[in-house]
């Protein structure tokens, strides 16, 4: 029965069947997630109707040396765009984007719900004229509805917007700005190929301030080539001085097929060594915490109440729509990535309109996959992995195995166990509860990685859990 239900999932399952509780056998030996384990967890998340949309606006003036995103470089000519004459490449793309939105149907097992978050990411979305952004928002609203109090974020790069442009965007309903600062040192900006300088950063911060954007974020990158400790400290303190409600701190990832990838090797000069780079991470964690920011996700900090709602849908594994070049949606438990090349993307939109694209059928959702996603994403957050619902979905034997594998790391302080009231369970107590088997299931409510030690080694720790879930 369960098996047959699963094979038809995800397209046919109905919301009202979700209350089926699956009886889970408890054994003492570590057990992987059973392939046909409870669908409950995924349902738990997937029964939420998608209320988030990611919209990719791929245009940049030039490609940054670390970037391997799907972008379209426009060249350095008209930095602010010409009000009267929009770049035809942008106009054309927006046309396809809106066609994609229109051609997208709400998956049958979801109800149509208005969008609670919309995120314009890029690329450099601030290069797109507000008039065209407006088109996209109108199309979204017509298709799904957009809540009046929706969080509408847009990524903006210094030097690509002025007061007027930002005001226009705000008038469209944009209420959150994510400012791509990356560094406050001229030489670093230059060496990573940013299209702006430090002056533009200060201007941009002033514009955001003068426009009265309440909710805004500064993006920074640590471990850039030639970055020194004092530079990083400077970037952090200047950021804190600017008083954004949110800070994203990304540790540089040297990707293949980027300019950095061809020039540098991670951990080797001129990139900071592993220890240095770990120190940068610690410094950010400490300085931002002292400045009143909450470290709510591996690379995200915010003032209380200013978590990025859109990004949070990712961490809690909720479904979301995605539109535009190379973007990835998550619906019915399936991640679907659109083509990364403009031409392929246009073909895709054409096919979508002709009813030739079906992102859901033919692929099965695997409980093990969901379990791994849930673990990977939750452990990135300060909230951590909700062991109660995880156990309900994947079996308490899985919980025991996860506990077993994390035991030494709880002792070493990399992993933290919390009870229902989010009080920490000490390592000795944890050990004794674990030795009594079932006891741990009663007390343990969350597992999280410690800040900063556990976060810093999150790859190690998450892949340990993977070993348990999919041996």
């Amino acid at each position, binding site marked *: 029965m369960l098996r047959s239900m699963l094979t038809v999932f995800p397209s046919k399952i109905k919301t009202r069947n979700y209350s089926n509780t699956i009886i889970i056998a408890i054994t003492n030996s570590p057990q992987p997630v059973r392939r046909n384990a409870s669908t409950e967890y995924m349902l738990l998340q997937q029964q939420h109707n998608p209320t988030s949309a990611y919209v*990719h606006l791929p245009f940049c003036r030039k490609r940054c040396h670390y970037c391997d995103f799907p972008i379209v470089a426009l060249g350095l000519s008209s930095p602010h765009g010409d009000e009267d004459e929009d770049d035809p490449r942008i106009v054309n793309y927006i046309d396809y984007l809106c066609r994609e939105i229109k051609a997208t149907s709400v998956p049958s097992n979801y109800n149509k719900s208005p969008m609670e978050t919309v995120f314009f990411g890029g690329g450099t979305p601030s290069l797109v004229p507000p008039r065209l952004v407006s088109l996209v928002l109108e199309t979204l609203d017509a298709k799904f509805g957009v809540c009046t109090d929706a969080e509408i974020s847009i990524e903006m790069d210094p030097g690509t917007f002025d007061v007027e442009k930002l005001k226009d965007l705000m008038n469209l309903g944009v209420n959150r700005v994510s400012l791509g600062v990356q560094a406050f040192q001229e030489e670093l900006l230059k060496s990573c190929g940013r299209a702006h300088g430090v002056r533009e950063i200060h201007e941009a911060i002033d514009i955001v301030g003068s426009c009265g954007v309440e909710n805004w974020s500064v993006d920074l990158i640590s471990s850039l080539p030639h970055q020194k400790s004092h530079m990083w400290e400077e970037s952090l303190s200047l950021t804190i001085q600017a008083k954004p409600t949110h800070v994203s701190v990304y*540790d540089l990832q040297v990707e293949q097929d980027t300019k950095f990838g061809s020039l540098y090797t991670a951990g080797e000069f001129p990139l900071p060594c*592993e220890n240095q780079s770990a120190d940068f991470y610690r410094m950010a964690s400490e300085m931002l915490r002292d400045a009143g920011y909450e470290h709510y996700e591996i690379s995200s900090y915010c003032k209380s109440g200013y978590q990025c709602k859109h990004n949070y849908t*990712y961490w809690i594994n909720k479904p979301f729509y995605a539109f535009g070049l190379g973007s990835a949606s998550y619906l019915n438990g399936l991640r679907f*990535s659109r083509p990364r090349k403009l031409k392929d993307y246009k073909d895709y939109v054409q096919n979508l309109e002709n009813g030739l694209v079906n992102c859901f059928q033919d692929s099965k959702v695997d409980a093990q996959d969901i379990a791994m996603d849930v673990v990977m994403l939750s452990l990135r957050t300060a909230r951590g992995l909700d062991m109660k619902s995880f156990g309900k979905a994947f079996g308490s034997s899985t919980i025991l195995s996860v506990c077993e594998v994390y035991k030494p790391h709880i002792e070493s302080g990399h992993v933290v166990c919390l009870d229902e009231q989010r009080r920490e369970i000490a390592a000795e107590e944890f050990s004794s509860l674990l030795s009594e088997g079932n006891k741990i299931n009663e007390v343990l409510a969350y597992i999280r990685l410690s800040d900063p030690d556990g976060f810093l*080694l999150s790859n*190690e*720790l998450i*892949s340990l859990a993977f070993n348990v879930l999919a041996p």
Partner: protein
Amino acid sequence: MSSFRRALRSKLSLFSSISTSISHPIATTRPLSSLLPYSQNASFCSRPRQNNKEGSTIDLNQYPSDNIRNFSIIAHVDHGKSTLADRLLELTGTIRKGHGQPQYLDKLQVERERGITVKAQTATMFHRHKFLGSDTNFLLNLIDTPGHVDFSYEVSRSLAACQGALLVVDAAQGVQAQTVANFYLAFESNLAIIPVINKIDQPTADPDRVKAQLKSMFDLDPSDALLTSAKTGHGLEQVLPAVIDRIPPPPGRSTSPLRMLLLDSYYDEYKGVICHVAIVDGALHKGDKICSAATGQSYEVSDVGIMHPELVTTGILLAGQVGYIVSGMRSTKEARVGDTLHHTRTVIHPLPGFKPAKHMVFSGLYPADGSDFEALNHAIERLTCNDASVSVTKESSTALGLGFRCGFLGLLHMDVFHQRLEQEHGAHVISTVPTVPYIFEYSNGSKLQVQNPAALPSNPKYQLVACREPTVIATIIIPSDYVGPVITLCAERRGEQLEYSFIDSQRAFMKYRMPLREIVVDFYNELKSITSGYASFDYEDSEYQASDLVKLDILLNGQPVDAMATIVHKSKALRVGRELVEKLKKFIDRQMFEIIIQAAIGSKVIARETLSAMRKNVLAKCYGGDVTRKRKLLEKQKEGKKRMKRVGSVDIPQEAFHELLKVS
């Protein structure tokens, strides 16, 4: 037929025999191509020829002992032994020139790649020669032996079936270490030795110098030497006449009770075990009941013949002849090289020289991926079907799981076994540092022969009173410029100089007694590197000697890693210990906790390194569209962990085990 051929192609064949077109009854009535169906791809077939009807079989009665010559070719590696063999086969029309691959008799991939002979092969050739005034048909058996010292027992058995040998020496390189070793083996077997100075077409050829070396080293008459170039064909026409004229016929008598020498064996999927034999006395017929002198087991001979070039049934083998028998043996382990086979219910004196295989080097073989144990087991079983000289026992290691302890005749044998496991059977193995059979004696009178260092107690109950280790006599020949560094190297390896002389003005000859352990790991590589590749080296077993040996344990965070334990001479323990821990520090990745790497003798730590904890491994940005990619990365990391071997909580990459093999 073709599938049969395919099945055999990559496996081995030990022997093949080849016929000539000159005087043989079949050859005169059939085109050559029908005789050599497989010469094009040099694969061969063990099935008797289908067209051998009564009357058309080869009549071996035509070849009494007087018309038979059994000889072997011995040489240092790369001096042209296999090429000369090819030319002789072509010269007698046994294989067609330009067809068939070079090194015809070296069937194994490993033999071709390394230019060595691992298994004995024979070729039967027919040649007409004016002898004592009249044209006579001769049956010539070329017995191709492995040249390497690891197989010196096999070589000695093959040589026991010969009455003469071609001693091939490179005209430019002159006498080398293996030349010396092989000469003495042949000399001790009382063989007629025909010196052949080969490769005289090289610009650097100096045959006179080589003649002088042969005279001074072996007392061989310079006028006896044949000058050849197997490459250009120069001088080859003198070779077979010299074989017939200078080598005596086999001495056995057809009228005596049957005694045959077992030379080698291999396993054929269709026929079972095929033994290669030399009839010393008497005659063997199909259907005879025979018995092994070594095991006492009896068998019925279901097929007997020569190789032609594939197996050709003759129904009979007479004294002095060399051929194959199929006798219903289940495994090649029953076919002991050097054994005497005789008719049941006859009493004979077994032929001298039989020895059971002596294993000099031991190593643990483990599946690279722990779950592949069954696959490795299967591969080893299949390979030992064709190489009965390897001893195999199951063992287990906490670090590596279930595996095998294998005993080898020597280093090359071990290497070849590994290579064949990988090449012919697709096995991926981790092997532990090779060790030699040490003997430890304790105060309670007990003796322990140690094949696996892990099995030696680190803190024994009884006091150790003596330890003994096997030694070898090493022969080293080098250009005189390199004498200094070589003496230093040998001293470092605890060698004791026995002899030091000059072959001629440019070449030095040295003999050393050395602990086998010292040459097991990388000695030859080291020797070659300090002599720019000019050194030649060979060794023979010698007796055990008392030695101050200790067990060196490697500990990771206090836990001994059994598969990394070694036994070393006390004087070297410190250096080896340091080298091992440094290597490990380099090859173990940083982990979430600090790792202390120690080398210890008993409870005393002699070397220590600390691998600090990993500081950072985090994927910074992870936006919605990135989830799949990030997950793949983490899964990859997980898979990487899975391939590691774990001791306590420390993950050890497989490379670490491979690297340790390189520490002496």
